[in-house]
């Protein structure tokens, strides 16, 4: 069990009672490093201890009852039971004396007692185990080597998992743009011809084709992203398919407005910009760029929680297997919040344990 802020009391009590082993004490001390307020609480508890007073009860003798003498009549009435107790060596000396006296006086009862005696089994010493030589051993494995090997394996598993995680997070920015642009491409190809065709105007000054503003159609449940439709007649020009291109969106009859760049949530370095049109007196519109980026981010976040080949799953599976093979405790556990983000991890080995907070990858970058 890992120590957390919701179960530390039992750990404190075990520590004060001396029931924690060396590894658990290390885990507790590591936990207190990150929770100084609880360290104070533990130190406060150590100061208060109750020691039992030496109190004696002087009236004990009055409570004692006399031990009844064995009753011959009672033994005769329960003779076979007493025979069983005798051969099981459960009778007291006075009871054995009375039983022997009864047996001396009555041959019939003696025969019954002998029958009970006959039920005692005797081991046949001629039966020997034939494979004894195979059972003997010459030496015990050196545990240090086993711990060292299993520790190396655990480190290798963690390194592999970490390298996997870092490789994904350090994917080049351009590649990410390309991947989101690919999604945008896909979105552009999903043309729905349910909207009144709009005219397409081409800017004389730019090679980038323009299209009319796209009315919002339906809301996608759960994501809050409004879907868009592009009239079939206004399919994009091939030039749009070039990566990273931006679009000017205009409303026919209204002068083109160069919108202010909008930073995508989570992207603060200015990459993956999209344009938002600010149209007085009308509803906000989403360009396809913004729609595609929001949709991609929502999908990525949803799938992150379902990802099987993640750092945590890989590390946990690897350490669990190492623990089974080495018969030593290895574990990596994490605490998550409601959104599934990890905010604390605990790593335990036979030699040491550590528990530390983790910054969520979704927290805003500073």
């Amino acid at each position, binding site marked *: 069990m890992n120590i957390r802020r919701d179960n530390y009391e039992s750990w404190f009590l075990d520590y004060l009672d001396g029931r924690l082993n060396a590894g658990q004490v290390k885990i507790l001390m590591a936990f207190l490093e990150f929770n100084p307020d609880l360290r104070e609480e533990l130190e406060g508890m150590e100061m208060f201890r109750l020691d039992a007073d030496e109190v004696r009860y002087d009236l004990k003798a009055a409570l004692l009852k006399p031990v009844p003498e064995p009753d011959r009549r009672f033994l005769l009435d329960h003779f076979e039971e007493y025979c069983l107790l005798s051969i*099981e060596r459960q009778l007291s000396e006075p009871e054995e004396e009375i039983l022997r006296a009864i047996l001396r006086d009555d041959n019939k009862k003696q025969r019954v007692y002998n029958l009970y005696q*006959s039920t005692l*089994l005797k081991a046949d010493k001629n039966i020997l*185990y034939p494979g*004894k030589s195979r059972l*003997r051993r010459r*030496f015990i494995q050196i545990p240090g080597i086993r711990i060292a090997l299993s520790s190396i394996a655990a480190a290798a598993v963690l390194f592999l998992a970490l390298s996997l995680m870092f490789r994904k997070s350090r994917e080049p920015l351009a590649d990410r743009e390309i991947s989101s642009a690919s999604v945008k491409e896909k979105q552009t190809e999903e043309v729905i011809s349910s909207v009144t065709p709009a005219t397409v105007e081409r800017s004389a000054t730019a090679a980038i084709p323009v299209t009319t503003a796209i009315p919002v159609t339906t809301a996608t449940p759960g994501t809050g992203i409004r879907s868009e439709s592009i009239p079939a007649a206004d399919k994009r020009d091939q030039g749009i398919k070039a990566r990273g291109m931006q679009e000017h969106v205009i409303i026919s009859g209204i002068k083109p407005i160069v919108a202010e760049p909008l930073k995508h949530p989570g992207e603060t370095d200015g990459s993956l910009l999209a344009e938002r049109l600010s149209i007085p007196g009308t509803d906000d519109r989403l360009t396809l760029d913004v729609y595609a980026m929001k949709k991609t981010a929502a999908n990525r976040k949803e799938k992150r929680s379902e990802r099987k080949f993640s750092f945590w799953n890989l590390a946990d599976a690897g350490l669990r297997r190492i623990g089974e093979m080495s018969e030593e405790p290895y574990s990596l556990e994490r605490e998550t919040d409601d959104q599934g983000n990890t905010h604390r991890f605990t790593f335990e080995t036979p030699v040491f344990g550590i528990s530390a907070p983790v910054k969520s990858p979704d927290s805003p970058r500073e």
Partner: protein
Amino acid sequence: MTVEEYNSCVEDHADGLYRFILKSIKDSAKAEDIVQDSFEKLWRKVREVSYAKSKSYLFSTAYHTMIDVIRKDGRMEHFSGENPEGPAHEKHYSDLAEILHRALEMLPHVQRTLILLRDYEGYAYSEIGEITGLNESQVKVYIYRGRIFLKHYLGSLQAVI
């Protein structure tokens, strides 16, 4: 325990363990496997089990393995308390021990096991309870019932003879 202590366990307890299992399941090959398996488990925990506790560890391990074997083989016995063949068929057995072991086979395996542990190895009721997972009262009741059956069986033979 040390390697020397482990090897002493082999010398001291292998025969007794084998005898106990063999009398319980009447199959020498399986009894050998169970004994070997029990010592293998002791070896794996050689650093955790002390020499003083090794005997009870071995018997406890062997007992539970034996129960698994019995269940796997479907050898569930029902105690009827009677010899279906009748006491007259035992006339040709002149050796009391042989008759006794024949009667032992007719006991339910729990009663048989407890009597073997009690008589062969001299375990106390509490120790038998630890090995078998029963409490002391249950151990006593099973042993007493087993002995009463054996006594009646022997008594009925004597009456015939």
